[in-house]
């Protein structure tokens, strides 16, 4: 219910922000600018496309209020899917204009004779297609995350600028003073958001540097980085949360990555050290992280995230982790052990093979110490003498271990490869677990 209330409030605000100029346009519109229904529809589609794209930055600019309500990973997913939807609206805009007999097909063909607002409109459309296309097909194009991140930011800014110039230079409704004033306010909001994201937030980190004190190799081709605060006390975090980390002399570097804490947030070390565990998956994690040496300056922006046991009440917990997705779940288990929480905890630890089991020794030791913890290890490829479960995590394996009378009242936290989380989001409701008790965390959006 809390989620529904939060959703109604934030998305009500979101819908209002986007649709208000359309309502103002209707109220103040002058009939002498009358056009056909197709042109009105094209105007609405074009405006909604621009408004959706302009508000995309707000979704990922790490506002604590919004991120705290839904989780940054959910906002990233929303950002991605809304971006694709905005592209459909943007495509509908010229298609509807040409479909109206009053406009010619030459409208969509760049020409030296075309008025400048039309030309910048075409440029905005091409840039929008580029932004969405590069995000959806980055891996197929073998573009590094760092290059994608920079191009994504720059092209998005140019796209908003061109589209705003197109609307103000050519727009039928945008000719109204009240709509122009609204646009000015919205553009100012966009600029302030961007400055906050790229200037003020890094500035606030300037006085809170961190230093790498250990870079430890883990099973599963992973590394654990231990960081210590320099000149400040650090911070506490909820088990399962994450932070954006980056290295270098300045926090203004754009190369920052969201990584889950693998240390215990409940009782941090006396010197405030925190730990992140990172698997060699992409260009940064494979080329930069392994070579980070103790003494390296680091910048930590966090904590963020709602993928945490502290925000969900349940009769027990079921944690399902695959690969390096075990990291936030390991932080949860440490907190539960520290708190001596008596509720039952079931940890399903999945991996490709035995060597891929990150934190396997630590989890085994924890299972020895915690009577409430049931550790189930599932290997896709195992030796003949393997006594644990084999294959994928399935409904059969889950129901084999989970208490039949109680598991529907557990909270479920799943972190791992996309197929594992997709499968669990289908499997768990199929065995009777309510959908609102199933929590996943996804950062692999592009």
């Amino acid at each position, binding site marked *: 219910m809390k989620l529904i209330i939060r959703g109604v409030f934030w998305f009500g605000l979101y819908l209002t922000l986007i649709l208000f100029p359309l309502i103002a346009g209707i109220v103040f519109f002058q009939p002498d600018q*009358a056009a056909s229904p197709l042109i009105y529809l094209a105007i609405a589609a074009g405006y909604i496309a621009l408004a959706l794209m302009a508000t995309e930055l707000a979704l990922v600019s790490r506002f604590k209020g919004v991120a705290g309500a839904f989780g940054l990973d959910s906002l990233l997913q*929303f950002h991605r899917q809304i971006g694709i939807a905005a592209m459909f609206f943007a495509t509908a805009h010229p298609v509807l204009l040409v479909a109206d*007999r009053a406009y010619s097909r030459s409208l969509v063909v760049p020409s030296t004779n075309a008025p400048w607002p039309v030309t910048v409109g075409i440029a905005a459309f091409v840039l929008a297609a580029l932004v969405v296309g590069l995000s959806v097909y980055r891996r197929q194009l073998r573009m590094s995350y760092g290059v994608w991140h920079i191009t994504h930011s720059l092209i998005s800014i140019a796209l908003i600028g061109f589209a705003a110039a197109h609307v103000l230079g050519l727009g039928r409704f945008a000719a109204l003073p009240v709509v122009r004033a609204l646009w000015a306010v919205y553009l100012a909001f966009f600029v302030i958001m961007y400055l906050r994201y790229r200037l003020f937030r890094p500035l606030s980190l300037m006085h809170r540097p961190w230093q790498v004190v250990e870079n430890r190799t883990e099973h599963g081709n992973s590394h654990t980085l231990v960081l210590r605060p320099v000149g400040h006390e650090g911070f506490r975090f909820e088990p399962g949360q994450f932070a954006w980390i980056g290295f270098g002399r300045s926090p203004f570097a754009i190369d920052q990555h969201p990584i889950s804490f693998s240390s215990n947030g409940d009782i941090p070390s006396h010197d405030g050290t925190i730990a992140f565990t990172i698997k060699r998956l992409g260009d940064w994690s494979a080329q930069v992280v392994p070579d980070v040496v103790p003494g390296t300056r680091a910048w930590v922006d966090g904590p963020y995230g709602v993928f945490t046991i502290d925000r969900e009440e349940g009769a027990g917990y079921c944690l399902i982790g695959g690969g390096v997705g075990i990291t936030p779940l390991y932080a949860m288990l440490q907190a539960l052990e520290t708190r001596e929480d008596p509720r039952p905890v079931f940890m399903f630890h999945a991996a490709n093979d035995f060597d891929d089991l990150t934190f396997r020794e630590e989890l085994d030791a924890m299972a020895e110490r915690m009577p409430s913890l049931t550790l189930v290890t599932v290997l896709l490829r195992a030796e003949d003498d393997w006594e644990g479960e084999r294959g994928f995590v399935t409904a059969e394996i889950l129901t084999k271990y989970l208490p039949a009378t109680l598991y529907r009242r557990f909270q479920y936290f799943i972190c791992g490869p996309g197929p594992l989380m997709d499968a669990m989001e289908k499997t768990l409701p199929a065995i009777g677990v309510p959908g609102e008790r199933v929590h996943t965390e996804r950062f692999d959006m592009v």
Partner: protein
Amino acid sequence: MNHRIVSTVVIIIVTMFAASALLFTWAAVLVAPADGAVYAPADPHPPARRTANCVGCHTVGEGSIPVTHRNYRVDTCSACHRPSVRRLVPHAITMGESRCVLCHGEPARDLGMPVGHLRFESGECLLCHPVDHRFYDRQPAPAGLSLNFAADIAHPLGGVFQDCDRCHHVETRSTLPDNHREFAVETCMDCHETGRAE
């Protein structure tokens, strides 16, 4: 949050935006009906070869076509800008075309031309306002007179009041309005009736 919940929310929101676009279209059609001819200024030009090609005179560069029309095809002007309903001249043109403004030159007066017509040359009137063939020989009403509210005469017409010129000095120190100077003094009663005081 559950990945599938987010996807469901996205679908709901996108559907709402699509519905909003349709709602906007419906409202816009109500506010400004799609039939542009209802509100688009009428084409004031008489049918003629030189007025058939709209963009021969009206160009975007000169600013005579609104910026929002830049992408209309030139052969679609008449879809919205229908020929205007012209007012025909209901009397003979006895004094020549350039004299129209003597009677119709003041917009504020009865049968005065619209303010927007003041920019036209006085010799162009018949280009848009031809004579109605039914009244080609009808003489126009006396020029410059108001048709509706000629003042009542506030005194009896007998005795010393019988001769208008005695007080109103038609020839010298006239008390008549400027636009009455050309009328013969014998014609006062054509318009001015005796008032209630009589």
